[in-house]
């Protein structure tokens, strides 16, 4: 009767399309209530998957390969959990953030609903073409959110973002076409045993297209060019949504394809994993250095996202063991929670001071202690310091790297952590700085709803507390192999 799996897709679709006719700026309470339900659904799903392993649903009752299958295993349920856990506090934050007349909040709720439906759909789909549609749903919703109500800078960022998304999904679509032609199906489950190391050349090309397209969508260096302006330019709740969740979706898909249908290719070519890993390492170094240099606080956080995404790709050469997968998912959680919190604090700081320069934060620790504390906690996670989810991710990643003698990855992880400390503490330092009250460049702090600060703190604290208990999550990830 109740099937949490399918409702996780239908529910956001419903509230998104109900929020639109309700009128501009409306739909917040509907969304928050529905997100609460979604959170419960995903917890039910966790229980279901823990009890009975992989869940498969045949849409329309046909079943693959004629119909479309939805499937949930540990990996996808973990990503679903991350999505709903972040979305609910974020929605409460957004309700307070957007004033009734704010142009950027006019259609926030329907767009947000479609985005979440796309994400949930993407995590549950086991059909390559259906995944293409969910990718487009996510991509267009994200672009719409970035552009909504924005000035020229934001529109330009949204355009750049849009073309990057379209290129990525175009490459993906061509790959789907080639796969269908070669095997006559787009069902992942049916494909998995068919694709072997002796696959025809078109399959290698398809794999390459998917890899390139999804790396572009995940903003892996050097395809990251679109991310900082888009994430740094959007309004704070949107930036949080994008940085914490949207980029993870294409990463998840890449991982899913790598381990699923394309396992026959990726396992055969051991060196292949070093391509994303090398780019990931460069992303960490480049993104961190740019973050250290950035003048505007949201740009700093956006470049930090470029760097943090790099860690996700370091796992690819290590995927022969399960530890690397766990490290990747832990990093996705750590970064998701912390980055959402960080963008939320940035929203508070910018709203409170009316400025977005790092230099204008002096005195923030005194005026907005809660927000600065939340920023600090999120920063601890991003830096990978204990006790935090980021630390557990780093620990597992280094351990996996050492187990396979990949010393260079361990070194990159450590250096990345130190660089992250560089940009995190740059902000904290500024926040702790006291300027004499008479000084001309003292920022004036405007009062804000406390909800904003508390929601940021909630997510930041979650990112740290996860570092004290990661067993259940890691065991969930291990319930795997839906494809």
């Amino acid at each position, binding site marked *: 009767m109740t099937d949490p799996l399918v409702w996780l897709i239908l529910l956001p679709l419903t509230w998104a399309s109900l929020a639109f006719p309700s009128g501009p700026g409306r739909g917040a309470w509907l969304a928050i209530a529905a997100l609460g339900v979604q959170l419960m659904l995903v917890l039910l799903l966790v229980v279901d998957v823990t009890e009975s392993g992989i869940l498969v649903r045949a849409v329309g009752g046909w079943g693959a390969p004629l119909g479309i299958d939805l499937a949930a295993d540990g990996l996808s349920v973990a990503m679903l959990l991350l999505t709903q856990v972040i979305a609910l506090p974020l929605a409460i934050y957004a309700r307070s953030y957007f004033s009734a007349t704010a142009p950027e909040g006019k259609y926030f709720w329907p767009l947000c609903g479609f985005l979440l439906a796309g994400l949930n759909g993407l995590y549950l789909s086991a059909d390559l073409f259906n995944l293409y549609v969910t990718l487009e749903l996510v991509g267009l919703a994200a672009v719409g959110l970035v552009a909504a109500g924005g000035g020229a800078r934001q*529109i330009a960022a949204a355009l750049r973002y849009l073309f990057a998304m379209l290129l990525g999904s175009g490459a993906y679509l061509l790959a789907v076409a080639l796969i269908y032609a070669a095997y006559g199906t787009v069902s992942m489950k049916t494909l998995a045993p068919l694709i072997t190391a002796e696959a025809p050349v078109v399959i290698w090309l398809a794999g390459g297209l998917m890899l390139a397209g999804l790396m572009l969508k995940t903003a892996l260096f050097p395809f990251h060019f679109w991310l900082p302006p888009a994430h740094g330019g959007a309004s704070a709740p949107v930036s949080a949504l994008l940085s914490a969740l949207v980029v993870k979706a294409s990463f998840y898909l890449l991982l899913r394809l790598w381990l699923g249908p394309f396992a026959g290719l990726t396992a055969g070519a051991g060196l292949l994993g070093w391509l994303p890993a090398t780019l990931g390492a460069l992303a960490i170094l480049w993104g961190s250095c740019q973050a250290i240099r950035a003048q*505007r606080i949201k740009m700093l956080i956006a470049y930090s996202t470029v760097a943090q995404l790099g860690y996700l790709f370091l796992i690819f050469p290590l995927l022969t063991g399960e530890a690397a997968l766990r490290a990747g998912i832990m990093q996705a959680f750590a970064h998701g929670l912390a980055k959402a919190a960080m963008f939320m604090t940035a929203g508070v700081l910018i709203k409170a001071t009316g400025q977005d320069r790092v230099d204008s934060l002096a005195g923030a620790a005194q005026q907005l202690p809660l927000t600065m504390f939340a920023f600090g906690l999120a920063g601890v996670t991003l830096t990978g310091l204990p006790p935090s989810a980021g630390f557990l991710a780093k620990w597992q990643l280094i351990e996996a790297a050492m187990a396979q003698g990949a010393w260079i990855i361990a070194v990159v992880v450590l250096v990345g952590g130190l660089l992250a400390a560089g940009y995190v503490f740059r902000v904290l330092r500024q926040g702790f700085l006291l300027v004499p009250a008479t000084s001309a460049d003292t920022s004036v702090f405007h009062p804000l709803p406390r909800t904003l600060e508390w929601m940021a703190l909630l997510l930041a604290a979650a990112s740290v507390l996860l570092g004290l208990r990661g067993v259940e999550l890691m065991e969930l990830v291990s319930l795997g192999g839906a494809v």
Partner: protein
Amino acid sequence: MTSGLLFACVGALLFVMGVSGVLLIRHLLRRILAFNLMGSGAFLVLVGLAQRHGVADPVPQAMVLTGIVVAVAATALALALVRRLHALTGKLEPPEADDD
């Protein structure tokens, strides 16, 4: 050579042409054209290659119908953004990368 395979090859060329266009052309309206070429190319490969033995296949045809609708949605959104950018800046080319 069947017409399926022929048009699949044309599709491949169109796709490549479209991708190059999106990457190289700075004028935004033309970039939208290039994106549509890219999409059409992919659609041709999807249907053409599946029908390379000369028999019609309804599954990829339905997929392409879906794809066309998605493409027009993306095109409309892109146009809306371009027009808005033009209204705000009077330009039809994206500004140089501003990294900060």
